[in-house]
């Protein structure tokens, strides 16, 4: 298990076992593995929530500050059924998602494009990377009001914040991913007749793909954070508003409910992203596909 070069321990078969039997056994073992994982995931969740609930019931932690799972679920149910004070929950969620998604896509596309552009051109990268790093160190909370001043209170300023949260992480990885592309492969492509653009498309991008995806996995969470920070500074609707009102009214349950909502959405996005990634990476050696 600890050695990724080793294949998972497989059942041993007598000679003469038919292919179908062996495949069925492999499928069974994959399924069992999934079940074990799911079991532990649920177990951990239940234990964590249980601890939280109990310690708040027994007042080990103050439910006034930290709410409790049951209160959070109540609040979510209430929001879902009766809506929030600021309109339907789904509408608020939709607003935040819209901001985060636009920011995520524009930010990651820009990150990839700039990363690849600078990664392929050493002169440009030497000149500009200083600036990129400097800008990256500006606290986003400081940028938020500036963006709102420039872009107004609408969608644009939140998108810009989500964008800027995503951009740098994706940029850093895309840039390094380009640098790590195998030189022999680039040489081969060029000799086979590839133009600069074709080299980028057929060698650089595929080999930077796992770099880019590694950054996308954290970036979606960041995009939501960007949108929420923007909403804190000024907005009418959105999850950030719900959190901000909940904070202002000592409504711990409401605050955690909003956070839980964000988490669920992120995990869904994450799941979709993993599907896409697996599709793109189907050329990679995959152990679980072996028949044992």
């Amino acid at each position, binding site marked *: 298990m600890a050695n990724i070069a080793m294949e998972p321990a497989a059942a041993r078969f007598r000679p003469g076992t038919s292919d179908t039997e062996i495949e069925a056994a492999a499928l069974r073992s994959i399924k069992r593995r999934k079940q074990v994982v799911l079991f532990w995931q649920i177990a951990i969740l239940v234990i964590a929530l249980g601890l939280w609930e109990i310690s708040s019931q027994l007042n080990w932690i103050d439910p006034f500050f930290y709410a409790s799972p049951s209160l959070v679920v109540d609040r979510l149910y209430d929001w879902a059924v009766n809506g929030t004070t600021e309109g339907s929950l789904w509408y608020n969620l939709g607003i935040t998602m819209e901001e985060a998604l636009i920011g995520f896509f524009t930010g990651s596309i820009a990150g990839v494009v700039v990363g690849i552009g600078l990664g392929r051109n050493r002169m440009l990268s030497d000149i500009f990377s200083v600036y990129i790093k400097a800008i990256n160190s500006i606290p986003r909370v400081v940028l938020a009001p500036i963006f*709102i*001043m420039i872009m107004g*209170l609408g969608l644009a300023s939140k998108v810009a914040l989500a964008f800027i949260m995503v951009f740098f992480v994706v940029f850093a990885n895309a840039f390094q991913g380009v640098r790590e592309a195998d030189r022999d492969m680039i040489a081969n492509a060029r000799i086979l007749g590839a133009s600069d653009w074709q080299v980028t498309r057929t060698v650089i991008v595929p080999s930077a793909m796992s770099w880019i995806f590694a950054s996308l996995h954290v970036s979606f969470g960041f995009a939501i954070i960007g949108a929420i920070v923007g909403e804190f500074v*000024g907005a009418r609707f959105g999850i950030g508003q719900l959190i*901000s*009102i909940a904070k202002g009214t000592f*409504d711990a*349950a409401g605050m955690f409910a909003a956070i839980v909502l964000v988490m669920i959405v992120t995990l869904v996005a994450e799941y979709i992203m993993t599907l896409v990634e697996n599709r793109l990476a189907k050329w990679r050696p995959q152990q679980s596909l072996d028949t044992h």
Partner: protein
Amino acid sequence: HAADKITIMVGGYEKQIYLPAKLAEALGYFKDEGIDVELLNEAAGVDAENQLLAGAVQGVVGFYDHCVDLQAKGKFIESVVQFSQAPGEVELVSAKHPEIKSFADLKGKNLGVTGLGSSTNFLSLYMASKAGLKGGDVVSIPVGAGGTFIAAMQQDQIQAGMTTEPTISRMVKTGEASVLVDLRTVDSTRAALGGTYPAASLYMETAWVDAHKPEVQKLANAFVKTLKFINTHSAAEIADKMPKDFYVGDKEGYIKALEAGKGMFTADGVMPEDGPKTVLAVLSEFSKNVKGKQIDLTKTYTTDFVKQAM
């Protein structure tokens, strides 16, 4: 023109001190006046002014002292409707320090304020100096509001501190703190500061007000009506009008707090005569911006609209 949307940013519309904003909307007074008002929420007060000056919003519901402060920086904004004549804040003192009975006892202690350079900071220092303490006798610690304030007091990082509802009710209820100075009523404010202290207000850019008199008038109408409503209704009746998320779980506490604080609101939105002077006195002593500057107080507020509204 009248159909144009007016955006007003509120420095936390769930806060009781800014209650008239959401209440006016809930009572439908904006609609009655035929204006389209959008209320935006904003967590940290100071950003709102920048948005106002940058033209992103037309009005801000916030503390009046910013009008004075900004004039010192050459920006002219004015209070159009004055919601309250007391800050609505309370100096709480930790139950761990029963020896503290008055401001004078705070010598050498840490005072919690929402932020350095904020109104709570200036007010604390002003009261300290009124109690005969000199600069350096007390240390202001920025602790924000809400949970962080409570935690700081529980951990004894601050021995006293200035904060607003609902933190006040919460801490008094749990017995972790008691009220040292109550700035929620006009009388106690006068006693503590030597005058009324106009705080929550609707303020706008002077230039915008001059250019949009009819709209401002309608806004003033709506808010004055709201203030009247507050004056003529019980705390419970007001609470009923507010979105339920504002008093989650503890409606009773909300009502009680409102009862205690209701008195700070003006009846008619008019700036109290002695108010601006107090503010200037506080600011010119402690605000670097205002210190030594010539301030024309008459340009920091207007009563034209509220008087018309009556």
